[in-house]
């Protein structure tokens, strides 16, 4: 009985160890999103060098042809294309804020059949220093595997509730 328990524990350890050494694409993408949220967050005044470093680090998550689409009918519509443009927009946003805490919650990753692309659905919670309420937004991230690395190719907003339109 004791031998069996030891064998089972050993088996479980090997199993966990294997997945730790060989993470699934879903796990890799989830980890990347966690890191992205961490890099996007900042507190207080950033030194110019730190600002540049963080902006560059953020850009390393995206493919050169990344496209960010904000489509909230009646509220806000905008599309930013290309890594450089996205980084400019991010840098401008960071400039105007005193602090930002980004969290990605309820992340579900679905791998495409070809294994070379994946979609991640999540809820982003953004806390801006000085603001009373959090900003909540559902997002869809599309990833593509480029040279063995999962890069963001598209970010889209998802409307949780579709608002009635103001009469024209």
């Amino acid at each position: 009985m004791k031998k069996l328990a030891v064998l089972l524990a050993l088996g479980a350890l090997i199993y966990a160890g294997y997945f730790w050494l060989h993470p699934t694409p879903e796990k890799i993408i989830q980890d990347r999103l966690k890191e992205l949220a961490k890099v996007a967050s900042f507190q207080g005044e950033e030194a110019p060098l730190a600002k540049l470093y963080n902006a560059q680090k953020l850009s390393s998550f995206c493919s050169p042809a990344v496209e960010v689409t904000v489509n909230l009918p009646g509220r806000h519509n905008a599309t930013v294309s290309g890594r450089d443009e996205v980084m400019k927009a991010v840098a401008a946003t960071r400039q105007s804020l005193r602090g930002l805490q980004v969290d990605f919650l309820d992340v579900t990753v679905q791998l495409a059949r070809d294994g070379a692309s994946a979609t991640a659905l999540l809820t982003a919670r953004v806390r801006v220093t000085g603001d009373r309420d959090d900003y909540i937004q559902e997002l869809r991230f599309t990833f593509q595997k480029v040279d063995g690395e999962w890069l963001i190719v598209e970010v889209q907003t998802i409307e949780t509730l579709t608002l009635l339109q103001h009469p024209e």
Partner: protein
Amino acid sequence: METDQTVRKPGWLQIILIGRNPKRTLLRALVLATVCAVGFRLFLLPIRVEGISMLPTYRDKGFNLVNRLAYVTHPPRRGDVVSVRTAGISIMYLKRVVGLPGETIEFQDGHLVVDGHPVFEPWLALPCDWTLAPRKLGPDEFYVVGDNRSMPALLHKQGVATRQRIVGKVVL
């Protein structure tokens, strides 16, 4: 042959903290923890209300529970306060159902109008001046909105939610 077995009586502190039989107490604690973990995840979901969109019915920072089994036997009804999930249940919107599948919903000068008829809403206490164009809801769509409509419509999180997004009914 005699054995000298003295049974040590548990002290009063031990009795208060872990009972006379620690194994049984541990088992009870495990069962209770399991029941709470399963119950508060699958049936009664504890939530903390944040924001003022449901004033005066629900206040900011209040605590509540969501009954996930409320709509097993029947669909949400007009007037029900429901929680609407986002990508998951970590963050949900607390809203009132005002439009049911198949109905045409609109707001005229702050009044809810369903299928062309104004609907009296006894839960409203704050003034509203919204005018929003009519929209016919699909067979699986509900219109949800907060009770505090004193802010501009665009600043108030509201809209069409599919049945699948409605997690349950608010209990308290």
